[in-house]
């Protein structure tokens, strides 16, 4: 039971993160938001690796395409903050869920990034429609 609460709490904290990052947009440019969001997390993570895990910091030894994560990180934080200020955190989160559903279906369909192939099933369509209806209600409500 406590693990279910942990998951709920994780989601609540993610919701808080999106809203608070969006509020930073009232004071900073999009790149300013990205700088603080990633910079604070980087410092905390370095402290965790050094003090708790007592490991060496390693940033090398990964395939070249992995180094694109920084660009993607900026894209994700900047776009979510920009949209949150304009349409609210709930609508932003709901629409992002649609994007995640479609893209994960594409990844599964073609087995991208080494994921096991799983063909799209038409039985999933009503589920997509339910999510779409939910996002519409959240956006216009």
């Amino acid at each position, binding site marked *: 039971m406590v693990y279910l609460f942990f998951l709920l709490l994780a989601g609540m904290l993610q919701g808080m993160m999106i809203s608070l990052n969006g509020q930073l947009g009232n004071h900073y*440019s999009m790149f300013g938001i990205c700088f603080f*969001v990633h910079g604070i*997390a980087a410092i905390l993570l370095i402290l965790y690796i050094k003090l708790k895990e007592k490991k060496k910091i390693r940033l090398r030894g990964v395939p070249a395409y992995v180094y694109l*994560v920084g660009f993607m990180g900026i894209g994700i934080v900047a776009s979510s903050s920009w949209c949150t200020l304009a349409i609210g955190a*709930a609508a932003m989160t709901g629409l992002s869920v649609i994007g995640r559903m479609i893209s994960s279906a594409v990844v599964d369909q073609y087995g991208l990034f080494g994921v096991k192939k799983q063909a799209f099933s038409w039985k999933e369509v009503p589920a997509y429609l339910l999510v779409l209806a*939910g996002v519409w209600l959240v956006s216009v409500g």
Partner: protein
Amino acid sequence: MIFYITAIANGFLNTINNMVNVKAGECLGPTNGALINYVEATILSFLLIFVSGNGAELNFSHMAEVPVLFYTGSICGLVAMIFLIIGTSRTGAMVSTILTLLGQLGMAVALDYVFFGLFSIQRIIGIFLIIAGIAWREQVKMRERRKQIKEESV
């Protein structure tokens, strides 16, 4: 309209980012793997602040004017990651997806009310429809996966 399209594109980016982060984690371990994202994005955004002519916003006096609470978003994100790892390891992907989404949307609705004064019963119904849709899809996916495994083993 542009905000709606961007929000959907944000979801696309999230999926790809997660996949690439998993790869980084496989090579360097979860924490060092995650650190690549944060260090790289910090350096890039620092440079982009100056390239876009917004260097003045890094003045200490300006930073001090911003409520401290607004800087704590990334701390929330890191703590969430820890809870997510612990919770998912004991429950499974489907329960994890649904509960985190429920928490995320619930908090988003609450904070939209705090920051923007937005609240309605439609929004609450909308959240439950989204959760129901995700649960449905996960159920279908799980059934299809089981069927696939059965067929492969025959």
